[in-house]
């Protein structure tokens, strides 16, 4: 009798595992998991997936190995040996490198045509030889944060509507000098530490605001009159102390959080960093606002989206199961949960934006939703783009050191043209 009961107990405990064995397992890497600020959001995202789709697919989430800075290197090492996850979260700028490695599978075999058609800008940028190699997971849009208190102290009563007004207001704020503790106040922050990715293309809004651009029809068009004007203004910004020099994104955020920076453009999700860095805590949010980065003329906007994409790697054995995960991760539930947790991520899918952001009462979110309508994508589908990003960062550092903007622009254009020709 005892033996029979033991056997029954063992069978009862093992029986669910038989059901699990039938459910395909999809491995997903997600670098946000290592950030403690994202843990609650992602826990809810993946718990909700389990509740909705747990009988169809099991997600095996790689939560330990991929901090943001290591993702590309990790995938680089995994790809040749075929040990990549099934689905990876990557920056759009890394897709060309993964293509070079021949590591990406065609996502159109996994996701339904209806969902793929939902992408407002289409997926042309991520289609190579007829295969869709990546889909946008969420758009990281950039808009301008501003400090309401500094605006008030500088006598600025209206938000700037053009980039010229942004520069004029930055000068007024910088003229305030120092705060009560003797710390300098800066008007407009432009990151330039050379320690982080994405600092180079962070100057694109400035180029666009002056009518310039980085690339046009496949040609590098950096060395133009419009871009020269932008470079001269950047040099002037640093020379006159309106922006601090050599600051990384993190340091700039800290400066903004301590109330020593009037304006700078960044991601909406960084409001969490401001709260952490400010002595006011959560109250700091009521002292700041956001607006789309103004362009040359009133009504223009020059923000950009730094897309984060999902890719399906060739190591994936079950594209259909991966498709369920991909559609969920890019869908309204996930984006809605991210919005609920204050992550400020937008979607490139029309139905998702309509559903999640139809009634926005948070003014900062409203500004980012507004910016998302006009934000431009980055021309990142070239393996040389990440090197170009570093080259532009170095050129901005040279401007901060007082070098001639024309010479700097000429040098960086030649350098990038050579990179692209290779």
């Amino acid at each position: 009798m005892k033996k029979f009961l033991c056997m029954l107990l063992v069978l009862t405990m093992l029986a669910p595992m038989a059901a699990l064995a039938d459910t395909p397992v999809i491995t997903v890497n997600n670098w946000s998991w290592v950030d403690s600020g994202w843990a609650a959001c992602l826990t809810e995202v993946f718990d909700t997936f389990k509740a909705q789709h747990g009988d169809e697919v099991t997600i095996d989430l790689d939560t330990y190995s991929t901090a943001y800075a290591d993702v590309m290197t990790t995938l680089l090492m995994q790809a040749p040996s075929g040990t990549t996850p099934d689905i990876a979260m990557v920056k759009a700028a890394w897709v060309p490198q993964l293509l070079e490695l021949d590591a990406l599978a065609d996502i159109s075999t996994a996701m339904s045509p209806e969902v793929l058609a939902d992408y407002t800008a289409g997926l042309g940028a991520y289609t190579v030889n007829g295969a869709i190699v990546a889909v946008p997971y969420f758009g990281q849009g950039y808009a301008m944060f501003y400090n309401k208190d500094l605006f008030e102290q500088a006598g600025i009563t209206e938000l700037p509507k053009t980039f010229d007004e942004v520069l004029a207001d930055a000068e007024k704020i910088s003229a305030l000098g120092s705060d009560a503790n003797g710390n300098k106040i800066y008007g407009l922050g432009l990151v330039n530490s050379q320690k982080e990715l994405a600092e180079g293309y962070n100057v694109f809004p400035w180029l666009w605001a002056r009518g310039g651009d980085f690339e046009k029809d496949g040609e590098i068009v950096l060395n133009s009159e419009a871009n020269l004007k932008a470079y001269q203004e950047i040099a002037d910004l640093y020379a006159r102390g309106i922006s601090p020099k050599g600051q990384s994104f993190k340091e700039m955020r800290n400066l903004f959080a301590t109330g020593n920076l009037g304006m700078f453009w960044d991601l909406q999700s960084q409001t969490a960093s401001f709260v952490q860095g400010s002595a006011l805590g959560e109250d700091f949010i009521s002292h700041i606002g956001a607006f789309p980065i103004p362009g040359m003329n009133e009504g223009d906007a020059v923000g950009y989206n730094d897309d984060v994409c999902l890719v399906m790697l060739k190591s994936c054995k079950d594209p259909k199961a991966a498709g369920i995960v991909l559609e969920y991760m890019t869908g309204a539930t996930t984006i809605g949960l991210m919005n609920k947790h204050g992550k400020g991520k937008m979607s490139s899918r029309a139905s998702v934006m309509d559903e999640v952001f139809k009634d926005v009462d948070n003014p900062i979110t409203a500004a980012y939703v507004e910016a998302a309508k006009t934000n431009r994508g980055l021309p990142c589908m070239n393996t040389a783009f990440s090197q170009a990003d570093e080259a532009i960062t170095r050129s901005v550092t040279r401007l901060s050191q007082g070098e001639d903007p024309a010479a700097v622009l000429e040098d960086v254009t030649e350098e990038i043209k050579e990179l692209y020709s290779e």
Partner: protein
Amino acid sequence: MSEPAAARDLRSGKKFTLSDRAFGMLLIAPALIVFLVVIAYPIGRGIWVSFCANKLKNINSPVWNDFKNYRDIFKRGAFWQYFGTTLVFVVLTVSIQVVLGMMLSLLLNSNIRGRKMFRGFFIIPWTIPSVVVAILWNWILQQQYGVVNYLIMRTGAISAMELNWVSDPALAMASIILACIWKQLPYMTVMLLAGLQSVDTGLVEAAHIDGANGLKSLWHIVLPSIRPVLVTCTWLSVTQNFQQFTIIKNMTGGGPVYATTTLSVAAYKEAFTSYNFGTSAAIGVLWMVFLFFITLLSNWMNDRYSRDFV
């Protein structure tokens, strides 16, 4: 039927023996295998890759391209800049470290109160991981909030917190040297202290009796006595600083522009930003060859000193 020879030997009590040489090889075999797999093979493969075109497209199958990677490195000209930056960094870091290390070890070797406690506390920077050291020093040298700028401002040397330690080329080099010395000084001090404690005190006393002051006995008695330790520590410090990557990458990223881009940072950027593994390996090989010849020179000079003076 006759029994086998081995069974006869066992019955008669004879033992199976290996020759001494074979037994020695057996004992070192595990270490040798680890050495071959972890050190020799990667070095060999790295040298081979340095002669190949190896990018993302053919990451698993490098294609031999003779000396093209080396020609490209020298044609670009940047290699000499990286090499010069590395030499400046290594010479300054090691020389300051040796001098300070010597001073501290002499102090810790003297009869000061609490010297055992000081020796214990003093080792702490060496135990801190390099990436933490880099972050720590980034904060200490931070322009707006860093304690160094604050103290300098309080002395009146500057009117505001305006020294940007990572954006100014000269200050950026100074900042990484400072951080590296802070981390490595305890090790140098401890090693020199060990050397000082092996100095024959009778010689020092004899020198004092003969009228030599502290400086003369240091120069003529102590330093020659600890010469082997001093040379070894200096050499270890040179090779360690040639390879220094973590602190430089995390403090300045090799910037501003290329002001602190050493060979290690350049090799990393070539591999993981440009994805040009062949060129990255070539940089590594060039610096390995340089260190190899410097080591040979150093060993020759040491041998000559030992022959002439010992």
